[in-house]
């Protein structure tokens, strides 16, 4: 009998505020240790937290995007445990009354759609970092991260494969970035995925789960879960038992290993934080967020298909991030939406390839949306051919100017003058009498040869449509 896999994810999304959740310290990444930790972050005696109200609307927007209940009374609790990078001896988080309640997220794997339940999302503060080994024999504490606002998004245990888990994580990753509430940077820890994995025989109660933590790429999340599923199945089938524990993924050996056992479960002695008042969220607050919500990825994809006639695939690629989608829409708008498909083709091929080659984000590209549109307009008005456009694009990418400047400087303007084309056609036909003979004898594929010769003679600048037409006339 086969095994059934049960996966639930806990995602920590760092919210894009300027300052910490309960203090005015900056949360900018990469500062020297302890330079972004004020008296509140240090847990100094008598210091009190004040909620950064920016986190509320960001959380509400995620709740709305997940069709979730918004907690009308949101309460902060203290989770008590002692650790050197937790200055107050407790983490301020939400237990009973989270800001976002039950919601859903739809994923797609191999063309099959599935709705994943989102149990809740709650606000909490991040801890600092313990750095072992910088000072030999000592542990260095960096409290820059302490108090960074996190939204912990907890899924239902609804995923039944590594592919589904990654699809969910990616979808959530895309969503928080679309909403502008998280920068999604997995390397810097702005988007952290913890996976709870267990296996069972169909119909059995849930098996013992293990937790995979701190994996900073989707590829490795998938591999780690796959490995963990196999490890658990093999373990059980060989008569062993899964132990509830946290396991670390080792990407070099593609294995997971035990980090700490949860057998001695901590008692966190949660209770409502008496320093913070409950946050009351009104219908008006929610309506105000609704008004400023950006268009969400699914809606945008559907619109790209219906409004611009794009294929599902192109719509998918062009909505893979808010930046790409916005770039695309700028290009379409700047070309007066004359040929959105042409815009899409260029974005998904030439432009995407160039970005890829140089490892650039869309907004860092040397070719801006206006520049790309400028070139596409010249294709649309037959100034240049698609083939010449590739040359123009490369020159733009290398910083040689706008499309018009490059076409002018390099003399790449397409030849549309009938007389000029006729002269070239005549010349080619005159120089290839045997091929003309062959064509007339029924070898119609020779047409391609003539077109190629004419184009070559024109330096690629003759309008291919006109060349074709002219050749057919002359050879008929």
């Amino acid at each position: 009998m086969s095994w059934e896999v049960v996966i639930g994810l806990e995602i920590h999304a760092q919210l894009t505020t300027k300052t910490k959740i309960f203090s005015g310290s900056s949360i900018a990444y990469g500062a020297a240790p302890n330079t972004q930790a004020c008296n509140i972050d240090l847990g100094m005696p008598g210091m009190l937290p004040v909620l950064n109200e920016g986190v509320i609307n960001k959380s509400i927007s995620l709740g709305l995007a997940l069709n979730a209940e918004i907690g009308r009374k949101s309460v902060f609790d203290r989770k008590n445990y002692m650790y050197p990078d937790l200055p107050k001896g407790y983490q301020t988080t939400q237990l009973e009354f989270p800001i976002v309640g039950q919601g859903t997220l739809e994923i797609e794997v191999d063309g099959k759609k599935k709705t994943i339940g989102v149990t809740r999302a709650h606000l909490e503060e991040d801890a600092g970092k313990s750095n072992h080994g910088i000072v030999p024999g000592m542990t260095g504490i960096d409290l820059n991260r302490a108090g960074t606002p996190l939204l912990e998004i907890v899924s239902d245990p609804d995923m039944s494969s590594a592919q589904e888990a990654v699809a969910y994580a990616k979808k959530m990753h895309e969503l928080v970035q679309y909403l502008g509430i998280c920068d999604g940077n997995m390397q810097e820890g702005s988007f952290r995925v913890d996976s709870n994995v267990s296996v069972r025989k169909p119909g059995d109660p849930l098996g013992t789960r293990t937790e995979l933590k701190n994996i900073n790429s989707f590829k490795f999340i998938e591999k780690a879960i796959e490995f963990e599923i196999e490890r658990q199945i093999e373990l059980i089938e060989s008569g062993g038992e899964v132990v509830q524990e946290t396991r670390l993924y080792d990407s070099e050996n593609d294995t997971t290993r035990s980090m700490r056992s949860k057998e001695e479960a901590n008692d966190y002695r949660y209770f409502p934080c008496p320093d913070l008042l409950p946050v009351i969220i009104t219908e008006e607050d929610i309506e105000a967020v609704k008004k400023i919500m950006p268009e969400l990825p699914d809606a945008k994809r559907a619109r790209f298909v219906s409004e611009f006639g794009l294929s599902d695939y192109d719509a998918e690629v062009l909505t893979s991030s808010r930046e790409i989608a916005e770039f695309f829409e700028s290009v379409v708008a700047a070309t007066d939406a004359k040929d959105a498909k042409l815009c899409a083709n260029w974005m998904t091929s030439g432009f995407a390839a160039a970005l890829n080659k140089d490892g650039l984000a869309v907004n860092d590209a040397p070719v801006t949306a206006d520049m790309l549109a400028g070139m596409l307009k010249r294709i649309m008005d037959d100034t240049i051919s698609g083939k010449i456009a590739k040359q123009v694009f490369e020159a733009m990418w290398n910083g040689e100017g706008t499309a018009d400047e490059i076409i002018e400087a390099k003399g790449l303007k397409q030849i549309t003058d009938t007389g000029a084309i006729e002269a070239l056609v005549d010349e080619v036909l005159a120089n290839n009498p045997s091929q003309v003979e062959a064509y007339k004898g029924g070898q119609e594929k020779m047409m391609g040869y003539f077109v190629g010769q004419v184009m070559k003679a024109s330096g690629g600048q003759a309008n291919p449509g006109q060349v074709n037409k002219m050749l057919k006339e002359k050879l008929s």
Partner: protein
Amino acid sequence: MHNLTIKQMSEKLHAGEITSVQLTQHYLNRISQFDADLNAYVTVTPELAIEMAKAADEKLAAGEGELLTGIPVAHKDIFCTDGVKTSCSSKMLDNFIAPYDAHVVTQLKKVGMPILGKTNMDEFAMGSSSESSYYGPTKNPWDLNAVPGGSSGGAAAVIAAGLAPMATGTDTGGSIRQPASFCGITGIKPTYGSVSRFGIVAYASSFDQAGPMTRSAEDSAWMLNAMAGFDERDSTSADRPTPDYAAELENSLKGLKIGVPAEYFGEGLDTEVEKLVRNAIAEVEKLGAETVEVHLPNKDLAVPSYYVLAPAEASSNLSRFDGVRFGYRCENPKDLQDLYRRSRSEGFGPEVKRRIMVGAYALSAGFYDAYYLKAQKLRRMVRDDFTKAFESCDVIMGPVAPSPAFNIGEKSDDQVSMYLSDLYTIPVNLAGLPGLSVPAGFANNRPVGLHIVGPYFSEAKLLNIGHQFQQVTDWHKQMPEQYQ
């Protein structure tokens, strides 16, 4: 000079008859003379005091003085003071010099009140006698064998002995009012949220409230004006305009309805104390007030509720004292657990440890509902009692404590008896209401206070009653002979 009211001092300062430096030096001299016996100060800051007094004199000379400018103050050692040790009378913070001021300290500095020093208290404000201080007990100026009450015992003692004209205190379960009663001074715990808690070392956050400790109700009104007000750094600070607490001082008490709760005069109340309190109420009636009987049926639930909730909050609030970033750190820790265990075992005194353990227990899995949640329910019941009582009266009067000051050592081995000495004050903290203690006479030569409790934000009314009472009595003017 130390027998003047604050208003009189202020007038003399403004008129140039005395300078703040003279006034401050006068108190510093008295501290040198008397504090060795009383042990009311943990830290005296003569240089800071004189420096601030000079600045105050300049302010006064420039005509920029306010009512309290130039009048020195003593801060309870729970208020963080920039550059001065803030110990909470604990070994844990014996080496702690805060790099910031508590909001209250900032407010009084702005006005130009020179800081004489920091007053002794029960360790981390946990106690009713000031005996749990790491620096030894403070003595009651009226009888050196008696405790001054607690936790703001040092503050009460310095006012009673004339070692400061004004002092700050904090009241979590009675820590301003009970020592005020024991030392024969005036003290008010304002409505929770009136005075910012920013920079006050937290004991039990949902109860802690700072207030003034002075000779008279009038003095307290002036001082509360300087201390209170919304502070955005404290999320529980009441976002409302700061009233003028002195505005109603001279109002007539005609028609005032005094609620007298039968439950506050029952078993356990010292008969002498009862007599004095009833006499005091009769005195207020003579001023045109009338009494009505009210009931606070859940009074006896208050102490048990408090001794679950306050330790629960304390167990969490005191987790930050871990030997890592500030405060006491044990020598040569073997590892992290050893660092925690020994720093905290060696740094905290027995009462603090007891409350941390009680609190951690009450919050632990499996006991949370039975203790913490149950105690929260009791808290609401106690609060509802007051709401109901105030439907038929303007204020409630009764004793502050069941007895006058007890002897040093008398209750230090009997925690329950010690805890029960706060049975009349704790309900007021559970409800978050304002409460005033004014001197009402002596039982066996030890002072006894009258407790006046009002609805939320009725401080001006309470101070009005206290002031009118003090117009027809002179208990608040009396001082122990040796300090006169």
